[in-house]
């Protein structure tokens, strides 16, 4: 297990390095950063001055290594728009996004896994049909529309929940439902398919032939094997929530990292965009690593090769 974890961590670091190179080069792919910084009315001399000031005239490898050194120590440069450190900016916004993402993924798993298991136990039953209906809805409803419906219902009409902001836990209820419900269908369907497949295996027949009680057969012998692909999927979806909840954050005016990304893109604030991309990619890498480690713990065939 320790050897496997070590191997996977080394791999994760290599992936992170690759991602950092891509993230770094973004600044250069889009445009000449010196021109972008100088503004539309700047003269050639001004641009040249900026180029030398920020070191854009040095070889790209030197610039990358320099940038990487700073990035590792937490210095991601200064935002063009906010005029503050990008790392501060991100650190300020992250707690909101993290809270939302964590609540949403817990909501999604809590909704999807039990429903997926229940519909696999009795395929084509009423529970299965209801679960299918819920997952088709979740997949088909645009989240901005679903969010507005919730606001109209719970905030405007019933006055139970605040419309927007991020001050209390009540502010997170609706965003969590919208974001979680969007992620739930895939988890639900994968759980159902996995359970159906596992329940028809020989080792489940063996477990039944041993006289084990149905809950033991179901949760010990079946779910443990069926949940493995679900862990990987949930990790990717969690990463998506941390980086991609732009729509939900915007609607509910939650000033999280997704909202910051949207702001920075519209304002051409490249260092911030770059910093966010790096942060989001790192989330994905870390989450995938965690998912792999959970799966190795669940499945001895991964852990002992």
């Amino acid at each position: 297990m320790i050897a496997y974890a070590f191997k996977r961590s080394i791999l994760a670091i290599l992936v992170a390095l690759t991602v950092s190179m891509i993230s770094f080069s973004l600044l250069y792919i889009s445009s000449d950063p010196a021109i972008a910084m100088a503004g539309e009315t700047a003269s050639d001399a001004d641009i040249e001055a900026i180029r030398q000031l920020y070191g854009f005239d040095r070889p790209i490898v030197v610039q990358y290594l320099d940038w990487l050194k700073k990035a590792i120590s937490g210095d991601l440069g200064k935002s063009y728009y906010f005029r503050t450190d990008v790392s501060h900016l991100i650190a300020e916004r992250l707690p909101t996004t993290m809270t939302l993402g964590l609540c949403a993924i817990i909501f999604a798993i809590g909704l999807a896994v039990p429903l997926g298991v229940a519909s696999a136990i009795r395929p084509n039953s009423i529970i299965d049909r209801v679960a299918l209906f819920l997952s088709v809805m979740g997949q088909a409803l645009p989240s901005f529309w679903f969010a507005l419906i919730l606001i109209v219902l719970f905030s405007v009409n019933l006055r139970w929940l605040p419309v927007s902001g991020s001050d209390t836990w009540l502010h997170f209820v609706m965003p969590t439902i919208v974001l979680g419900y969007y992620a739930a269908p895939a988890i639900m369907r994968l759980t159902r398919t996995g359970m159906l497949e596992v329940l028809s295996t020989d080792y489940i027949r063996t477990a039944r032939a041993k006289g084990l009680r149905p809950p033991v057969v179901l949760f010990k012998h079946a779910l443990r094997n069926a949940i493995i692909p679900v862990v990987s999927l949930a990790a990717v979806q969690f990463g998506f929530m941390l980086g991609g909840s732009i729509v939900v954050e915007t609607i509910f005016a939650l000033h999280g990292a997704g909202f910051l990304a949207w702001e920075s893109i519209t304002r051409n604030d490249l260092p911030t965009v770059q910093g966010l991309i790096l942060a989001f990619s790192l989330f994905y890498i870390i989450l995938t690593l965690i998912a792999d480690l959970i799966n190795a713990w669940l499945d001895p065939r991964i852990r002992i090769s």
Partner: protein
Amino acid sequence: MADQVLNVENLSIDIPLSGDILHAVDGISISVNKGETLCIVGESGCGKSLTSLAIMDLLPQKAIRTVDKLELNGTSIANHSDKQMSDIRGSKIGMIFQEPMTSLNPSFTVENQMVETLARHRNIRGKEAKKLAVEMLEKVGISPAKQRLKQYPHQLSGGLRQRVMIAMTLLCEPELIIADEPTTALDVTIQAQILELLARLQTDFNTGLILITHDLGVVAKIADRVAVMYAGQIVEEGSVYEIFDNPSHPYTRGLLSCIPVPGKIKRGEHLGSIPGMVPSLIGDFTECRFSGRWEESSDKDDEKIANLVSLEGIENAFLVHGTTDHIVRFCCDSCLKKSKSKISKGVN
């Protein structure tokens, strides 16, 4: 009979398909005594595996089981609830499956999967359960047993996994073991070892054993009694000597002629086979199950024509040579005629 472990009378299994019914097993009766080995022989799809699952009440959900009598040690278990059956499964009836590679859960150690059976049925846990598991692994010839306990199924070979399955099944000392083609998926050399092991353990524990197989070599080696299944029915049943010496149903004869005997088969000569196809058992089946499968040149068999004594109660069932431990059953009158048997009315 006092030492009768299992008694099944008139068991049928119907599987509803879209709009029709598959009569997978049609009115079979079997019984097993303590310490006795009953081999159920037949080709794929004849219903032998379904029969074993029906005894365990582990049939697929949509399959319908009807049975006149299903008795374990003289008590009827035909109407047991699933909860009552789960108390019997694994403790009184143990089952060994065909596919050792996939019959153990890949996510748990051998120890975990063995000990949970003890905890379930005998309420033995912890060190004592582990001790029993080690002892049982040693009994089935696994060494070093202690290390094997800590391993996962994927770290074991097919033969070892089947040994683990057997050890697991024997842990609660069942009165009846049902082994569904336990050696089919194994190497020939391992097959012999596993069979010897099964035979030895069966004698040691004095359990009844139902061995399901399509391999007559296995039957000859291990069986006390044989039931030959064809298209959902038992066509012939008797002691292993009777079946091999006086096969009376054409299907049994066909099966026996299919065994290549070293030395008797000449180079270039065709191996024996049964002509025709198994009929489809979907829908109301009234025709002859064996039509088109009779060997054309049956002259050779003339000398083998058996004297049949009709058996009261069961249609077209006969005692061969009047011995009570050899019964043959034909599906219809035309089959009976074609068999050219001499028939005398039963005395009873």
